[in-house]
């Protein structure tokens, strides 16, 4: 077990190296030139050289890459070119905000969508099933952007149910976050319910369920006790992998609702060529992603006796 975990952790290293090379190449070779953007039109060559020196961009590329590797090991990505912020601090506070935006609807949505999916599976092949599946497909057929534009306009402005945008510290943030939460949940219902429904239907056709039914166990308790328990394995497999990306928040939400999370930081950084921010963020995400993959596998092994770690 311990050996397995150590080996898996070692596997992360080549992945990180790969991501490092990819990110470095994409953003140094191409992308916006941060020096140009900062200095604007008619910068003197001396000014360009001075700023490059200040940001270490005058170093040869291999040296810059080695420095990057050093940063990965120390978790210290320095400061943003544009705002001078210490990135470890900016990431920490931004990640918390992003999680406050994405985690509640993620958890709530998980429970809600499983409940809906179970209901549909229970009523499979009736009008309820057909209606719900059709609704799910319809809800998936609108752009995420349209949901945001329309719901902000109607629910927040026309009907005045929610504040238009904003953010506050601590629990005061809840009223501001309510509409974004609602939208995120609403958007997740369609695709998630469909997956969960398939999972449930498959579980319903397994032998142990047939056995249970044959033994006279009532259908609801089959659904809740046997099927739900077994269906949790595939469900968790899909959902846990999504957790690292929750840290990134949702940049569209963050822009429209003025939520100071990490998603928008990333988009701004891309447009400004703010390389330290991009480097730091991708590496953090890569590492959490790998970590959560490992956690998923361990969880599955713990829940499902058929799976053996090796």
């Amino acid at each position, binding site marked *: 077990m311990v050996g397995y975990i150590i080996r898996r952790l070692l596997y992360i290293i080549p992945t990180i190296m790969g991501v490092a090379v990819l990110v470095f190449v994409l953003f140094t070779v191409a992308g*916006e*030139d941060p020096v*140009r*953007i*900062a*200095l*604007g*039109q*008619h*910068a*003197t*060559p001396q*000014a360009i050289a*001075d700023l490059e020196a*200040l940001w270490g961009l005058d170093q040869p590329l291999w040296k810059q890459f080695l420095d990057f590797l050093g940063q990965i090991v120390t978790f210290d990505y320095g*400061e943003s070119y*544009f*705002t*001078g*912020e210490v990135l470890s601090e*900016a990431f920490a*506070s931004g990640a918390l905000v992003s999680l406050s935006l994405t985690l509640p609807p993620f958890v*709530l949505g998980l*429970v*809600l969508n499983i*409940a*809906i999916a*179970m*209901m549909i599976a229970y009523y499979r*092949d009736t009008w309820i099933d057909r209606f719900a599946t059709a609704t799910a497909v319809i809800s998936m057929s609108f752009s995420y952007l349209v949901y945001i*534009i329309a719901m*902000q*306009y109607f629910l*927040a*402005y026309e009907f005045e*149910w*929610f*504040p*238009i*945008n*904003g*953010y506050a510290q601590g629990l005061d943030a*809840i*009223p*501001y976050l*309510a509409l974004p939460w*609602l939208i995120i*949940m609403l958007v997740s219902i369609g695709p998630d319910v469909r997956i969960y429904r398939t999972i449930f239907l498959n579980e319903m056709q397994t032998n142990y369920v047939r056995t249970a039914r044959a033994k006279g166990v*009532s*259908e*609801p*308790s089959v659904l*809740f006790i046997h099927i739900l328990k077994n269906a949790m394995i595939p469900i968790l497999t899909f959902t846990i992998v999504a957790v690292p990306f929750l840290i990134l928040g949702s940049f569209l939400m963050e*822009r*429209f*609702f*003025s939520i*100071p999370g990490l998603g*928008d930081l990333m988009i*701004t950084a891309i447009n400004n060529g703010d390389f330290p921010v991009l480097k730091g963020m991708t590496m953090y995400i890569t590492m959490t992603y790998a970590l959560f993959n490992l956690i998923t596998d361990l969880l599955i092994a713990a829940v499902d006796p058929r799976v053996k770690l090796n």
Partner: protein
Amino acid sequence: MAVQKVSIWRKTPQLVLSALLIATVAVPIGCRPRDGAGNTDVKVLDSFRADVYRSLDPPRQFDVASARIISNIYDPLLEYHYLKRPYELTPNLLESMPELGADKLTYTFNLRKGIKFHDDPCFPGGKGREMTADDVLYTLKRFADVNVNPQSYPALLQNRIKGLDDFREKTRQQKDLDYDQENIEGLEKIDDYSFKIVMTEPDPLLLMSFATSPLSIVPKEAVEKYGRKLEHHGVGTGPYTLAKNPRKGVMVLKKNPNYHGTYPTEGDPEDQGQGLLAQSGKKLPFVDEIRIPLIEEAQPRMLKFLNGELDAIGIDRDNFPKMAEKVGDKFKLKGKFADQFNISSVDALSSFYITINFRDKVFGQNKALRQALAYAIDTPAYIDKMENGRGHALNTIVPLPIAGSERSVSVKWYPPNLQQAKAKLKEAGYPDGKGLPPIVILYGSQDNITRQNHEFLRAQLAKSGFQLKGEFLSFSDYLGRKEGGSFQLASGGWGADYPDAENFYQLFYGPNKAPGPNDGSYQNSEYDQLYQQMRRMPAGEDRNQIIEKMALLLKEDVPVVFLKAPISVGMRQKWLLNFKSNLMLGSSFKFLDIDTDAKAKGLKK
């Protein structure tokens, strides 16, 4: 499916579902907070920002978003008069305007006494001390330090003050220079409240640099205590202090009760009638608290403004047709908007044009071809169709509110004329465009508006025989191409660094050729001589005559074709008082006032 017994279990999924739905929807309703203060005791101004600032340390920034905040916390020595147009320098931290010595090279500055820095832990006892000449000299040296300021020095002070460039060179060699040990020939302290600055050559425009935000006065104690953290803090003499400063979210500024400034006592002739002089001579600032949330998207911004949660907002091209219209020379709000809000418009301090590259084989040696292009573009139609009339067709490159613009010189630009365009094209050797290869024009952005503008130009030029092709680049690539001189035409613009014609005419000065500001590498020795002469002259009729000659030369040679000088249009709530757009001030919050009763009522809708 076997029929099941009805049990409570059967209903469970629905129950869970409805409980969850109710929980998520019911919590927020009923506790809907609104921005914008309903409290009438405290005067709150609700502004917003569309971009994150880069740095609040004055010498470390040179962008609009940063300058806007810095102008409220720090003060430069001089500032532009809030009400008078054309823009005019007035003393800010000074007793009076600096005096020019008989040698035409030395300015003597006299500081106002009793100006205090904000209270801050960096000072002994946390009490802000008085600002003196030492602070100014420290600020100037720090401004010139290449390790602090790689950005704004070349534009503002390079080659202008004796010995300062050498000092900058020295900081490039040695990182932690002790400023106190360094004597600079052109900076001389007389006593605690006065100092002299010696220029390298007569330079009437130098003083304008002292009204820009990067040259705001910063106390040494703050730099020593906060270091790079000063980029997110603020210790100045300005009208406001920084109460809350999240990177994004709501910034809050609080009134500095010890601020030295007073509301101007004179203005333009029409200002009196508009109530802009009602508070003449009163102590600034009027508003107690300014809230500045970051709102990046247009939709929430406009929704909040309509709700009364923001006090002022710009009207962009998308919003304009439904909300406002141009009647004659004036802009008016339409329908219900007119009852609810006030409109304002102001001539922007920038001009937009197409640069022609003189290094290009087709255009460089063919004056008639360049003139044909000038005749072919119908600028008034462009402004009318593409900008809803929010712009001026220019006769010289200088925007109207700037000294030395077409208001003081009489030059008329080419009128749009299809016949003339065709005739000139024939003269250029391309009758009806035959034999003329497609012309490529560069753009420094790829957005929708740029593409639409290009489409308009393309269609228009096609009428006289030009085939226009657009190349849409990222901003940094665009700059690279322009400075490398590898382009034919480039669509671009120039915003005034300071409100003087010189800032625009330098764009055609031979020695400034690409990679310098003269992107098109226009070369005309007569023009260069006039420019050198004009640069050193004080404002006045003689100078205007020279400017007129330069404008005529540019008209004849056509190194650029003008497109527009934009007019910015904005709306504000009726409770916002003392509002007059001033584009040379980083921020005019300190002059604004709020009718708190009206605001409280307006919010209660």
